[in-house]
């Protein structure tokens, strides 16, 4: 349990470092979507964009949506046959147990 600001900052920085490699992979995906939709990857030379990919903070929600659609295809509903509510709750309980030492009963 975090008890002082230094610990909170250390936890957040640790999280940031641990997530960076995967975030870079996602950023590459979003950047590819950005280019496919006609975005200018060099436009960020003039203003603060997300690390050189041409993607700006306000583009994220739209690009995530577009990337998701192109990866999953037209029929997202197809996936729901694998996402039974009971199974999904079991899955998150495994995460709670492994990551936080918690049980749900």
């Amino acid at each position, binding site marked *: 349990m975090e008890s002082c600001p230094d610990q909170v900052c250390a936890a957040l920085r640790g999280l940031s470092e641990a997530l960076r490699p995967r975030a870079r992979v996602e950023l590459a995906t979003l950047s590819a979507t950005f280019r496919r939709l006609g975005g200018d990857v060099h436009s960020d030379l003039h203003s603060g964009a997300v690390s050189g990919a041409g993607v700006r903070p306000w583009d994220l929600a739209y690009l995530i949506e577009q990337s998701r659609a192109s990866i999953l295809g037209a029929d997202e509903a197809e996936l729901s*046959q694998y996402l039974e509510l009971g199974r999904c709750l079991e899955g998150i309980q495994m995460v709670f147990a492994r990551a936080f030492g918690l049980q749900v009963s």
Partner: protein
Amino acid sequence: MRAVPGELWHASVRKLCLGTLPRNGRPSTPLGLLYLDLEPRAGKTSHPALYTLRAGASAARASLGAHDDALLLRHLPAAALVCDLPVPNGAGAEPSTGDALLRPRMLETLYHELGHALHALLARTQCQHFAGVRAPHSNSSYDDL
């Protein structure tokens, strides 16, 4: 976890107890109660949300005369996770399983709200009005893990 008569506000509501994993022969310590109210029904909000029913603040040290943190009395927090997931056997569900099938976006919403639930049930504070997700919104962003 079993509910007492009259505790649940609808037959579809589930009561769960969040606790520590049993370790080295020690039993689980209860940390909080979570009610799952996931199905749509007439008159219910369709907006997914996590409501604190009882905040998990500890009684103030001064009021107890306690000098040891372990002696602080903590209210067992309780929260309600309210969602608008499809009912079992609704459109697209397999009749044989009787369990709701989620679209990816619904799963994200459910897990997002469970993040708030963890925050509400695990937070440690002596300040009733800042317990768990009862804080300014900027403070409740960190729990979206």
